[in-house]
């Protein structure tokens, strides 16, 4: 089972790969759209990437609720 920090690190790599955001900026309190400039299409790719990386399934109605990096990490932790 991955720890919070391990999930955040892997998520940061994914956000960097998809949207070019520096990995060190991807912190738990950051909002994807407001702080990291991740748009709706990049978000789709990040969600799909999370599903592949962490073996979770994130339905549309849930993905809309994931506003911050912390939201996503918590979701992955509780659904792994």
């Amino acid at each position: 089972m991955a720890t919070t920090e391990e999930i955040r690190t892997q998520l940061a790599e994914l956000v960097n790969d998809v949207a070019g955001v520096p990995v060190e900026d991807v912190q738990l309190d950051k909002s994807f759209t407001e702080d990291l400039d991740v748009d709706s299409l990049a978000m789709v790719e990040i969600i799909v990437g999370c599903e592949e990386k962490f073996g979770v399934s994130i339905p549309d109605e849930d993905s809309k609720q994931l506003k911050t990096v912390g939201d996503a990490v918590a979701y992955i932790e509780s659904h792994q």
Partner: protein
Amino acid sequence: MTSIQASQGSPYARILSIASAVPSRVVDNAEMCTYIDSSDEWIQQRTGIVERRWVGEGEDAESLSLDCGGRAIERAGLTPEDIDAVIVSTISQFVQTPGLAPIVAAKLGTAGAAAFDISAACAGFSYGLAQAEALVRSGAAHHVLVIGVETLSKVTDLEDRSTAFLFADGAGAAVVGPSDTNGIGPVVWGSDGNQADAIFMTQSLQEVAATGTPSWLHMHGQPVFRWATTAIADAARRALAAAGLTPDQLDVFAPHQANNRITDAMLRHLKLPDTVKVARTVKYYGNNSAASIPMALDAMLQSGEASSGDTALIIGFGAGLVYAGQVIRLP
């Protein structure tokens, strides 16, 4: 018992020529923003589209088909009588019957070539190419003209800001004929009719007659984006493998020009080397559905970005949902 003779085809098929017809009317993002509440910046950032082409005065699906079809036959060094099958892929023949292909076959001057339309939306060129390859190899035809043509501007809802900036017009054609070496790899294709409502017409013809209002092409963009960047990226990888090639052996990647963001995501999945030249004609042409791949290939060949003999991976995907991709040798 009497025996029935079987047709004798060529061992291999290849693309002998490619041509395209680019409509005259340029609609830039500034003009688009007079119809929808949007901005040049948003459209470019989400799609890479700077301008698109719409048919102008005197242009329609038939005229575009004749234009590129005629030039493709010339470039193949053939005459219209050499063409014995014409396949037109389009969702812009706005009657159920007759098809556009028989009209195009007659007006081009073929000697009554077999002719039929196919409906495979944005995968149409690759679907048509797969059929042409099979016809040549089976001996059912010797030279097949495949045309992808669309006038999506006629079904674009200028009040729908989530699709109006995408759809566009254009045509592209290829002549497929017999060859001593293989020029068309195995097709990797399929469909997912469970997502038939992802890209759709808002009304049937009966409803149009009853309501007296037009039917528009609409789309749920995000599910399509998700499908294109996952399942279709994987299908592209399989088409390459089916041809027995590795990414480093590829010269050109020309996916259906739907959106540069889809192309970018596919490139991330496929891990193609930087040396591969990637089609980006969506920037100037918009999304031309069945026409986008041959339009992109012709533009790349004419500009010198791609060369005759190059190995190219093409893949189309769209309403159905349907997809098809294959590796080809450029003429």
